[in-house]
């Protein structure tokens, strides 16, 4: 149910640290109900773009609109209302280490919604089960979880409030191939049922092939291509060719 409404629209975004310009007039749209795969070389600035959109890094120039609202022009309350509608899965999970897995998922629900403890617990447990974790992890602290489980708990937390947009920073890294495929399928399910829009930074060619509706490629600070996987495979751009039709790309394609 991809529509033409852009939930995120980035125009001429420039971000830099000191003298280094990481993003140079990058322009990108994420449409409602799509899963956008965002690729680029390591250190190309994929995470920088994501962190700039969600407001963790300052921009030098350009315009970022989320749900049609310019993020530079909102007050604190409006910003909170927008933040309530997105969920972020950080690369390392970023779980609160002093809270258990269950408490981590409950945290945003408890902060934003005034619900009974029973419902909060049931919803949080449901989210944990939906990301493929059994009830055994509920009382465990992040330090007692494996890397893959941390990712899943973090996804559960990102989805805790049933957001409209989910930002995923390399969601399937650290999961075994079966887990990664389940993860992709889960993202698909939630995306379909909730009209979720997904912005996924990834290197996982499987995910790019199976779940991403569109792919955007970042190179040298700019978005050099956007389009479905077929466009990427057909492209003659040298970087795209080596990325999608290199050894690893071919293995998956055939």
């Amino acid at each position, binding site marked *: *149910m991809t*529509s033409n*409404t852009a*939930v995120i629209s980035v125009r001429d975004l420039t971000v830099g640290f000191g003298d280094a310009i990481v993003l140079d007039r990058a322009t990108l749209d994420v449409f*409602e*109900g799509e899963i956008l795969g965002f690729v680029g070389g390591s250190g190309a600035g994929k995470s920088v773009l994501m962190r700039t959109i969600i407001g963790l890094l300052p921009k030098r120039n350009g315009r970022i609109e989320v*749900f*049609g609202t310019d993020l530079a022009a909102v007050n604190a309350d409006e910003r909170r*209302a927008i933040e*309530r*509608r997105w969920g972020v899965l950080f690369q390392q999970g970023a779980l609160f*280490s*002093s809270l258990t897995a269950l408490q981590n998922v409950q945290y945003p*629900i408890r902060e*934003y*919604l*005034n*619900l*009974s403890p029973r*419902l909060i*617990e*049931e*919803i949080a*447990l*449901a*989210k944990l*089960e*939906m990301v493929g974790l*059994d*009830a055994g992890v*509920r*009382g465990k*602290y*992040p*330090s*007692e979880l494996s890397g893959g489980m941390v990712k899943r708990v973090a996804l559960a937390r990102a*989805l805790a*409030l*049933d957001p*409209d947009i989910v930002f995923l920073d390399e969601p399937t890294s650290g999961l075994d191939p079966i887990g990664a495929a389940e993860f992709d399928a889960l993202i698909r*399910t*939630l995306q*379909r*049922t*909730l*009209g979720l*829009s997904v912005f996924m930074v990834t290197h996982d060619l499987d995910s790019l092939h199976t779940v991403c509706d569109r792919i955007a490629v970042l190179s040298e600070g700019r978005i050099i291509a956007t389009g479905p996987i077929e466009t990427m495979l057909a492209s003659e751009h040298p970087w795209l060719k080596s990325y999608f039709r290199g050894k690893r790309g071919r293995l998956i394609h055939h």
Partner: protein
Amino acid sequence: MTAAGRDAQGTSASLVATFDGKGVGLIATGAWIAERAAELEKIVDDAAGRYQTARSIDIDLARLDRLDTFGAWLIERLNRAFTARGASTRIIGLSENDRGLMDEVRLVNRTAGKDTAAANGILVALDSIGRAVAEIGASLVLLAHLLGALTMVVLGTIAHPARLRLTSLVHHLEKVGWRAVPIVALSTFLIGAIIAQQGIFHFRTFGAEVYVVDMVGILVLREVGVLIVCVMVAGRSGSAYTAELGSMKMREEIDALRTMGFDPVEVLVLPRIVALVIAVPLLTFIGAMAALYGAELVCWLYGGMTPDIFHARLREAISVPTFAVGMIKAPFMALVIGLVACVEGFEVDGSAASLGLKTTSSVVKSIFLVIVLDGFFAMFFAAIGM
């Protein structure tokens, strides 16, 4: 349903009941979403209670505007409440979009959570006392363990002096020794001044002001100087050691060292503890001098006792053993502070909370053990007549 046009608060949400001869029909309308979950929970529990006797229930979702996990779960909760009583339920009118979500929700929360039965209060108290005692025992064992490992490393280093990390040692010596001088000198100066002032004030009533010098001299050199310095060092450097080692432990740096074939005790613990063992006696000396200076100043300005008289009295009151007692204690106390700090640092597990906890307990334990050790020294020196 466009995201941009969505009402963030949702519209209304309700559950309408209809009856026919055989059973109850419940029609869910509106937006069953997170924002409305609080009122929906009441509606759902209310409905589950009201139609207890119904044998057949249809839950109609055809008129839903929006459904998210919160709403889906509440419908599932309603469904389970009826099926648990043996009623037959059907969920009808489910749209294609919501089917996946309802299927997902149907699978969750099937296993009952751990029963957290209300525990007996007395048992809980006994349990925590027992754990605390066991923990004290375990931490003493760890202290002994690290002391043993350190001894082995020290012996090895004596045999091969090149193994001592001199750069690291000097670095720590600067941090725990040199940089601690101003604050240690200032606080011991004030302590000396305060003791002298109190002494003069109270001794004056029976004309024994001159003995203030004896009191200050013996007290500062034997006990207070070294204790104040140790408390400052435990708070300043012991906590830093624990935090440093703890965060290295958290980030697996210590494991990395070990896999490269290095002994963390040799690389990390030895330079730190040696630095403390060198720095604390020096700081104790500086502290004692600063305290005596503070006392002298107060005696002069407040008690009207000239420095000459103060010096003459001091020379009579104290002897080399008085000074030696304080200095002998200092390196042992430094060792205790260093050992406790390093043991606690290695005990940190993955969480930020445990880092804070261990840093606190490092300071508390080392100050406590320093005082206990001081007590043992007092008995020891009394026994040998010093």
